[in-house]
């Protein structure tokens, strides 16, 4: 069915992947002190983990955003807009707050991350599926509640930080201020494992995404166990967002931008292609942006600022260009 469109899209994705490769190569090798072997090695040691973190983040946010949009059947909402990353920050702070900075969960980054992931998975699935049910997926309500939740979570988190013992706050600081210049690389290995497991466990549900975008009634008519499928996919989305937030901190609007760019470019319902497009756009924006930040602005402006500004404008454009949606 419509093989021509499928092939055109595959070609577009291939070109996009080439661009990603070029950007990644530029990021790695620009001004890398080719002449001096020791300096070159030093540059690589700094840049390779960063590049890996950016690629992993792009994968997590790109995948999660498309899946999330299809679950709630709206393309202008992303997990970050609904406060999922604020929730992660809150959980992370709450854990340190509750168990203290000397405990295993604060000292060992991987243990802390694992606890965060479990808490996040449970809380987010309960909270968000409750709100989706309650609002019957009405986008305006979902968006409104999401915005309120987002500030609620960060207010609670700030309140906790204020009353915290300074030593404990110190232990938290590195995780709270994670960004692309300050990557939480300790948990990278665990992140990759978590993401791989999620994809593996959800592979059947991911194949059902195409059908689910026809709406609840059609999906059930075609034999999909809708509610179970939504629950499982939502859990996957929250874990992906947790991974991205833990590693490089919150980046609002990135998901929105890349998911919609992918939808605009590919104009298809096939989620395999949409997710691939979104992930590739994410990689290009993050790596390209970081390249710009490091080589042109010499670290004066973090890449998340560009993404926020560009993404905010793009979000307004999306809202205004689709009247009545």
């Amino acid at each position, binding site marked *: *069915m419509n093989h021509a469109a499928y092939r055109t899209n595959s070609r577009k994705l291939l070109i996009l992947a080439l661009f990603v490769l070029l950007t990644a190569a530029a990021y790695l090798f620009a001004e890398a002190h080719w002449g001096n072997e020791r300096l070159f090695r030093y540059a690589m040691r700094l840049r390779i983990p960063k590049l890996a973190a950016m690629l992993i983040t792009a994968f997590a946010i790109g995948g999660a955003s498309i899946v999330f949009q299809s679950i709630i*059947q709206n393309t202008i909402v992303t997990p970050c807009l609904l406060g999922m990353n604020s929730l992660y920050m809150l959980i992370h702070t709450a854990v340190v707050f509750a168990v203290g900075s000397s405990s295993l969960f604060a000292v060992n980054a991987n243990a802390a991350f694992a606890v965060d992931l479990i808490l996040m998975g449970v809380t987010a699935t309960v909270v968000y599926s409750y709100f989706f049910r309650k609002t019957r997926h009405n986008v305006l309500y979902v968006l409104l509640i999401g915005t309120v939740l987002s500030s609620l979570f960060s207010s609670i988190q700030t309140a906790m930080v204020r009353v915290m013992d300074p030593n404990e706050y110190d232990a938290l600081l590195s995780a709270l201020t994670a960004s692309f210049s300050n990557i939480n690389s300790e948990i990278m290995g665990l992140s990759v494992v978590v993401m791989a497991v999620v994809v593996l466990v959800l592979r059947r549900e991911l*194949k059902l995404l195409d059908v689910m975008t026809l*709406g*609840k009634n059609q999906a059930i008519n*075609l*034999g999909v*166990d809708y509610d179970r499928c939504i629950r499982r996919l939502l859990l996957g989305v929250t874990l992906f967002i947790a991974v991205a937030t833990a590693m490089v901190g919150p980046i609002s609007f990135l998901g929105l931008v890349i998911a919609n760019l992918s939808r605009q470019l590919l104009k298809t*319902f096939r989620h395999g292609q949409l997710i691939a497009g979104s992930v590739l756009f994410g990689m290009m924006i993050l790596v390209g942006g970081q390249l710009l930040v490091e080589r042109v602005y010499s670290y004066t402006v973090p890449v998340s600022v560009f993404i926020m500004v560009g993404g905010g404008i793009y979000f307004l454009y999306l809202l205004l260009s689709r009247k009545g949606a």
Partner: protein
Amino acid sequence: MLVRELTKKYDGKTVVDSVSFQIPKRSVISLIGPNGAGKSTVMGMISRLIARDSGLVAFEGSDIRKWKSRDLSKRLAILTQSNHTQVKLTVRELVAFGRFPYSGGRLTPEDEQMIDRAIAYMELEPFQDRFIDELSGGQRQRAYIAMVIAQDTEYVLLDEPTNNLDIYHSSNMMKIVRRLCDELGKTVILVLHEINYAAFYSDYICAFSEGRVAKFGTVKEVMTRETLSAIYGVDFEIMEISGKPLSIYY
């Protein structure tokens, strides 16, 4: 298909109250009744879209809850009123989804054949590569019916298929319903607001009133002045036109 003492409550209010009837095979059955009489809810419950509170819906001898959803989707198709999707989908791609219960995402040559046939049956060939959000209401409705045909089920359930269609498209839709039964041998159950469409095109009518079955029978049995007046609370005249009892009300 057998429905026994089906009941549904919303917030303590009983919307469907021990409804029982049996669906005769290879016929067109219309569910009629005033707003809030529970006909769409009954339709939802017999198609597993809405969970029932108590009672039984038996399909081919066993409870629909015991059926695997996937197996049921090869035997029974439901089309609800509002069908819109956010994604860009062509008519052909939509119709292809009808084959999902059989082949998952991967279409076999046999599936392609069924899709071709469904598109031809609904005379949608000229539009098959158009996006559905670019079609008119009538064409879109036909595209969704084509998907149901591709699903190749014995039972077809349609919730207000003439909703939002003008007279021309509505009567076309009803003729299609008749053909689904007469030519393809399907059992078609539909919720209708237009009593005369029900009277003219169906074999049986199930009339609902306040969550209960007020009358279930052949068109002639249900289309009487007394029954309709009691259900709708409006005066009716029944006239026979080309052998069918049609109602006049105002």
